[in-house]
């Protein structure tokens, strides 16, 4: 007399002979598609650079990143330039975190 658990476990323990299965699998494996090591950093940094350039290009007249960083350092509050500089800094920090996580 067997309980259902025993019956299921006994059935599960039955092994299936390989019979060429592993060889067939190995025969169909595709060549590894390794991305070159420089591709990911280039994509992340490239995206950050393009985003920053677009932000600067479409910024209001008289906007200066240098002025923005100066405003941040001197704690002049949330001037438009300071917000722009902080956004740029955040984008670059985000890129650095992504690259570090991928390493």
């Amino acid at each position, binding site marked *: *007399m067997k309980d259902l*658990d025993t*019956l299921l476990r006994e059935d599960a323990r039955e092994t299936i002979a390989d019979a060429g299965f592993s060889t067939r699998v*190995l025969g169909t494996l595709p060549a590894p598609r390794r991305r070159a090591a420089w591709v990911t950093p280039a994509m992340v940094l490239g995206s950050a650079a393009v985003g920053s350039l677009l932000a600067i290009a479409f910024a209001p007249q008289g906007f200066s990143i240098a002025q923005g960083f100066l405003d941040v350092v001197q704690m002049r509050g949330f001037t438009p330039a300071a917000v722009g500089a902080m956004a740029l800094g955040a984008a670059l920090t985000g890129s650095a975190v992504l690259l570090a996580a991928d390493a």
Partner: protein
Amino acid sequence: MPLPAAPSDADLILAVQSRDDRRAFGELVERHQSQVRSVLRRLTRGDTMLADDLAQEAFVLAWRNIAKFRFESRFSTWLYRIAFNAWQSEARKRREVLMDIDDDSPPPGSEAWDEMPDVASCLDLERAMAGLSDGERAAISACYYADLTHEEAALALQLPVGTVKTHILRAKAKLKARLSTKEET
């Protein structure tokens, strides 16, 4: 002189990840092929050809994605997740409804299961399992045939643990009923 210990799954995975070692991957396939094919045979209701095709697809996907394996779970759990996904995709193509809980199924009874007669053969069990819903078959396959814990099965099937437990209880109630009926006839 003692024989050198066989490399662990982790050693083999690292070899594949670091240098695309096909021989190491072949060893992993040999180690896990029986269980993966067995699980898929249960999932496909005994269709051995389809099960082997899906197993092959699962191993190829594992090879393609092994760089993403982070050792956060057992390799077998990760592999079964791929196999279950392959089966689900195939089942969707056949417009089957997956992971359903039948409301008309017998309610789960006591955890203490009655003993089954010896004549309940593996063939009877296979037939009885074919009558389970997809979700129930998947849960039984994961917990018994893939030897996963409820938590690992939940991870592999992408279901809440409670749902896996419900599937198991319902499946066992149905199996017991079907195998008992078989014995009476």
